[in-house]
């Protein structure tokens, strides 16, 4: 029997939306599947080190919650989020200088959902979002899904460059595009590992105000600083602390308590807040009451500030191990950022090398990283990689860097032989790991 048409193994192949075109199997993801094995030192994923959490205390919290308020915790809740938790989020945000009314907080399923809601509410297809170069892969995915035009703006040692930002906005307007939003991660940037100082934050806010653009401030790592970056002993002051009307602030408990509970939030001006709540109800009806009340009970009964200190010390030790071993091992021509907090360092390879092309060799050598291309929408970033130090123990981090150095040295030799470190074919599909692949 010969069919006039063959079989594509997917009867819906002609029905998918245009935006689903890039959703293909990925050679890079296949490599990350290996990275999840214990033999591999994964400097790839951004999994918080939840082992540093007091699990007994969390177990007691959950047990008590279900026993005493189970009928509420296991029921639907408000689309805006639990009122008690929103009060407590206010206390958490006070740590970064924000005074916000609980009514202006929308609790979400991780701050990723808040990102989605803000983009859904603000962006029509083609609207321009300005992002750092590089930027958080999860945000780029959301902006792409809503068919935004994403424009990367360069960073320097203090993050997003104001002059370059103003120029990019001007160019976009001159081209007839519709600038809508500036998305920034001012503290302990993912993936850049860079933090904006106080003046830099003011400069960026000035531009947003002058240009009439919404500033979307993503701050999941704000409380996880190790070094003074211009704010003394306090965590970096959020941009939102200085403008309640022009900034939507995104926060998360994923890094300070537990990522598995998936609780984040948006703090938004009143009008925006209303729309975010309606959008949230359309998307998920309400965030998980169980997860919210677990977080709320934990905040009320446990020394959460002490817990944040434990996380901070854990990550500081790992950051130090990474930077120290990079200094010892990396070949000439390799550079990297020195994060003052958070989870990541951004490494630049010697001229001509390609982190995407190199990844199979790295995984074969039992070390993994995320190639820089995942953090751009335009194929840039080949010479870069993101190294994550949050999950492996310090000695494993050192071992991973030793393995990586060997891989880079071999790659330098290969590039010298062939006059290029790039490959002919461009792997299709996502080039970053799934959230559970550390």
């Amino acid at each position, binding site marked *: 029997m010969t069919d006039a048409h063959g079989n594509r193994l997917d009867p819906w192949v002609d029905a998918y939306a245009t935006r689903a075109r890039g959703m293909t199997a990925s050679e890079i993801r296949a490599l990350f599947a290996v990275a999840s094995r214990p033999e591999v030192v994964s400097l790839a994923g951004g999994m918080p080190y939840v082992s540093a959490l007091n699990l007994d205390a969390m177990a007691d919290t959950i047990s008590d919650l279900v026993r005493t308020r189970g009928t509420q915790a296991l029921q639907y809740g408000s689309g805006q989020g639990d009122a008690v938790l929103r009060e407590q989020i206010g206390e958490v945000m006070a740590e970064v200088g924000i005074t916000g009314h609980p009514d202006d907080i929308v609790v979400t399923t991780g701050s990723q959902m808040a990102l989605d809601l803000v983009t859904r509410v603000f962006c029509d297809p083609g609207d321009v979002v300005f992002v750092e170069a590089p930027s958080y892969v999860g945000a780029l995915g959301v902006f792409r899904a809503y068919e935004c035009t994403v424009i990367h703006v360069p960073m320097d040692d203090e993050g997003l460059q104001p002059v370059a930002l103003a120029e990019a906005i001007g160019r976009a307007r001159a081209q007839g595009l519709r600038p809508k939003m500036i998305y920034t991660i001012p503290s302990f940037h993912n993936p850049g590992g860079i933090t904006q100082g106080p003046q830099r934050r003011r400069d960026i806010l000035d531009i947003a105000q002058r240009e009439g653009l919404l500033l979307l401030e993503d701050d999941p790592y704000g409380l996880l600083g190790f070094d003074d970056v211009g704010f003394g002993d306090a965590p970096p002051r959020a941009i939102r602390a200085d403008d309640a009307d022009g900034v939507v602030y995104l926060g998360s408990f994923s890094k300070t308590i537990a990522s598995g509970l998936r609780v984040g939030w948006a703090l938004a001006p009143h009008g925006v807040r209303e729309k975010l709540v309606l959008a949230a109800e359309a998307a998920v009806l309400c965030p998980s009451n169980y997860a919210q009340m677990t977080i709320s009970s934990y905040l009320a009964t446990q020394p959460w500030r002490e817990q944040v200190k434990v996380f901070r010390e854990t990550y500081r030790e790992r950051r130090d191990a990474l930077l120290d071993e990079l200094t010892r091992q990396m070949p000439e021509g390799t550079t990297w950022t020195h994060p003052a907090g958070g989870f990541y360092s951004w490494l630049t390879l010697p001229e001509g090398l390609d982190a995407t092309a190199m990844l*199979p060799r790295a995984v074969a050598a039992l070390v993994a990283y995320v190639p820089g291309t995942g953090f751009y929408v335009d194929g840039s970033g080949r010479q870069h990689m993101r190294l994550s130090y949050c999950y492996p123990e310090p000695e494993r981090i050192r071992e991973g860097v030793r393995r990586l150095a060997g891989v880079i040295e071999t790659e330098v030799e290969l590039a010298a032989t062939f006059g290029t470190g790039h490959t002919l074919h461009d792997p299709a599909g996502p080039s970053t790991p799934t959230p559970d692949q550390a």
Partner: protein
Amino acid sequence: MQVVVLAGGLSPERDVSIRSGRRVAEALRAAAPDWEVLERDIDADLLGDLSSMQPDCVVPLVHGAAGEDGALRDVLECLGLAYVGSRPNPSRMAFDKTIAKAVVEVDTPASVSLPHSTFRELGAAGVLRALDARLGLPVVVKPARGGSALGASVVREPGDLPAAMVGAFAYGEVALIEAFVIGMEVAIGVIDTGAGPRALPAVEIVPDGGFYDYAARYTAGTTEFYVPARLADDVAARAADAAVAVHSLLKLRDWSRIDFIIDAAGTPWFLEANVAPGMTETSLVPQALTAAGEDIGSMMVSLVNEAVTRV
């Protein structure tokens, strides 16, 4: 009967292998409800577990090195365990495309296999010029050992050869540079449940992008398959004979998948042989089985029954 399906491992084809293993295990459970079918990854505890379990049969579905290069099968033989599939040395020969192409007595595209060290020591520019002179363009550049088209690319311009080599060497120490044969890409499953090897209907592969790369293999909808392939009866028969011949010449056992390009004259050009064929939702052997009116479960039950008689 206790059967252990081995899948996973540390090769870049880990994810594919896990999906293949899951599908085969489910098919076995459905076809033989009385059997105990376990799925197991490859790790440091495996040998101890297999030694203590002493399963009646093992089905190795680990793709890539270790799974297909004979090493895992050597270990299974050391443990005295029955297993489905080819023995170690034939697996070793089949996994290395260079060796397989040299051994089979069927048409195969002209090719050269070279390690990175040759380019480094003799100078890449000179070696690439010699390759161009010998094979012309286009050529296919791929790792000599490995599957799922990882690190493989088609080179149509001389200036693209260096980048193609870098891509292939990312997945292995030796690269195979093979003349590109224009024609129909087909895969033919060969099954031997005790009565001698027989070919399943050829699967014709028409990828949207023109090259059957990793994304085209594992993204449903991006490749069009015709089963049986749109071949004249005599050409189809010739291709089937060639597949069985390759299976026999390489001394493969139980099952394999043999890949060819069939040119305009109807000549099948051998590309490679696979001793642990993919069994995912988008893989080729399951499609061939369906076209033949067979199913994965029945085939695997037959192969397991055959394997246990060999111990």
